[in-house]
């Protein structure tokens, strides 16, 4: 039982990080109907910006950890959001009315550009940081197995929940959210009714990038390192999570992320670590056979 609880914690934390990245995939897909393959690399950029901000703050002699974390969070969200905006402007907007595959290819190209850019400017080495948030709590100690919950795990999960709540509220309650949902249903009609479609799409990329930056920062804090190629694997996993949850659905992305995280962890915990990816993807296939739109997805009306 203790062992199960410990693995549940492990899985939830991993799943939260996947979920945060998956939201970016799902939001863009919902509105523009394209898979933004550069999103994993935006996540990587977010991690690097967090790292650079952190190093600058430390060299300036700042030592209050909560203050550092707050500044790092805001700076990396802001700067990464600019990246998201530029990527949309440069690589996707000119192709919006082109054939369906054009923006997809452009996204793959953008992914190469971003990872090479950070390799050239930041070097090919792994960039570690010392553990910032240390310590933890022993939840239950049965003598030979202590269930441990570290502070950083709490930070990751709480941040995820708070952000998810904020963005759910934004999409369902605010004017901007209404614009988003309108663009999702029919861009032409939305434009006729006075919604600024270009601006709404830009904002979607900006928000997606800001969330990816948070995920990048959580990743940096939790695992203690970033490198220029980390966006690829994380991006693939998060994309899988978005599809599993039902691409286009915000809670679906989070649920998909948690599901992938939990499947990987529990498979490693009770079966063989070797096949954890096989397990995760097998379950994806099974789910898609029986629920082609994913766990929370709605059947899509083909937009032409």
């Amino acid at each position, binding site marked *: 039982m203790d062992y199960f609880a*410990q693995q549940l914690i*492990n899985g939830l934390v991993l799943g939260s990080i996947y979920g945060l990245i998956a939201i970016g995939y799902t939001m863009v897909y919902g509105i523009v109907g394209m898979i933004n393959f550069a999103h994993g690399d935006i996540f990587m950029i977010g991690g690097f910006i967090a790292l650079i901000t952190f190093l600058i703050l430390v060299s300036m002699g700042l030592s209050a950890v909560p203050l550092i974390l707050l500044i790092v969070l805001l700076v990396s969200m802001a700067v990464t959001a600019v990246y998201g905006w530029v990527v949309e402007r440069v690589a996707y907007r000119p192709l919006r009315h082109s054939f369906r595959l054009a923006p997809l290819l452009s996204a793959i190209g953008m992914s190469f550009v971003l990872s090479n850019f950070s390799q050239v400017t930041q070097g090919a080495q792994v960039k570690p940081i010392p*553990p910032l948030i240390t310590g933890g709590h022993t939840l239950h100690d049965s003598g030979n197995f*202590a269930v441990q919950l*570290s502070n950083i795990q709490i930070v990751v999960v709480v941040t995820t929940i708070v952000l998810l709540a904020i963005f759910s509220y934004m999409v369902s309650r605010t004017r901007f959210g209404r614009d988003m949902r309108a663009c999702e249903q029919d861009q032409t009609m939305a434009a006729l009714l006075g919604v600024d479609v270009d601006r709404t799409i830009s904002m979607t990329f900006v928000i997606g990038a800001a969330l990816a930056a948070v995920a990048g920062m959580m990743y940096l804090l939790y695992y203690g*390192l970033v*490198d220029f190629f980390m966006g690829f694997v994380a991006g693939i996993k998060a994309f899988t999570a978005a599809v599993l949850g039902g691409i286009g659905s915000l809670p679906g992305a989070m649920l998909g992320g948690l599901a992938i995280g939990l499947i990987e962890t529990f498979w*490693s*915990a009770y079966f063989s670590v*070797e096949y954890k990816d096989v397990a995760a993807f097998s379950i994806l296939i099974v789910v898609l056979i029986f629920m082609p739109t994913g766990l929370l997805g709605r059947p899509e009306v083909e937009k032409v």
Partner: protein
Amino acid sequence: MTPLKLIGLALVASLALSTAAFAQDITIAVAGPMTGGESAFGRQLKNGAEQAVADLNDAGGVLGKKLRLFVGDDACDPKQARSVAEKIASQGIPFVAGHYCSSSSIPASEAYADGNVLEITPATTNPLFTERNLWNVARVCGRDDQQGQVSAEYILKNYQGKNVAILNDKTTYGKGLADETKKVLNKAGFQEKMFESYNKGDKDFSAIVSRMKRDNIDLVFVGGYHQEAGLIVRQMRDQGMKTVLMAGDALADKEFASITGPAAAGTLFTFGPDPRKKAAAKMIVDRFKAKGVDPEGYTLYTYAAMQVWAQAAAKAGTTDPMKVMKVLKAGTWDTVLGKLAFDEKGDIKAIDYVIYKWDDKGNYAELDPGKGT
């Protein structure tokens, strides 16, 4: 990333080729993971090779010609290693010091054999590298069967009756080393509690770490590279475990401690006796330090590989790889690592591994100093 990098590589290659042809220099190569997770070790190889080329040129070059260095990047990826090897072979480069990852060195060595290139690896420890009877390979480091033996003996001596887990990353190097260690342990009647593998490049080891916690593992032996080993240590400490991690030569870079932080304290690994401490190395070590480089890990091994080739080529009077190899295996060479002689397969005679221990300041030292030197 790969296509772009290949184009870049092709550009560099064509430049190197044209300049080499005009200047009548000898171009030699160093190849290893200059990018990616293992790039810390690629840097060691490159530093060692650059210094060796500079020093050899200061001493008049080889066969009266100056040396030029071509740097190949395999990113620890077998496919890319093969294509780098073919590039090096197609340029008519007679000698390469490389690679680092066993899964790169082994496929590359076949391309080198076909393309008439002599390969001395400073760092590949998988036995298979020299066991295939290729004419063109040699190494200046030890082998995983020797390394596994030393680790296993340590475990048998200090962890008798305790719980030991063995993990590997499924790579040629990691799996090979884990298997060799397990073999020696099992032969002595010692049964490990857990034998598992993970994927190289994984970042999240929390599930496997909790499993080790459940099984009360006292020591985990990791056949794998430093990044994953570092993350395992960090995540074990996060879950409140005191389990000792032991690994092979892949932990011999300070980057390991920058991943773990102070949690590195107590981590063990096997490596050759510290070459930086050998009397023969003092002057060369000072030259590295003057440049702000700590010649740790395989830096001096790469330097030695270059020295062996330069001396053998000078003695053979040619850079023709087949002839140089014949001379190389027949002689004894004076290197920064001491005197080196090779057997028929290309392994060095007389290799000794010792055990190192990391402290909480980010340094490592021999556990039992003086034993190997």
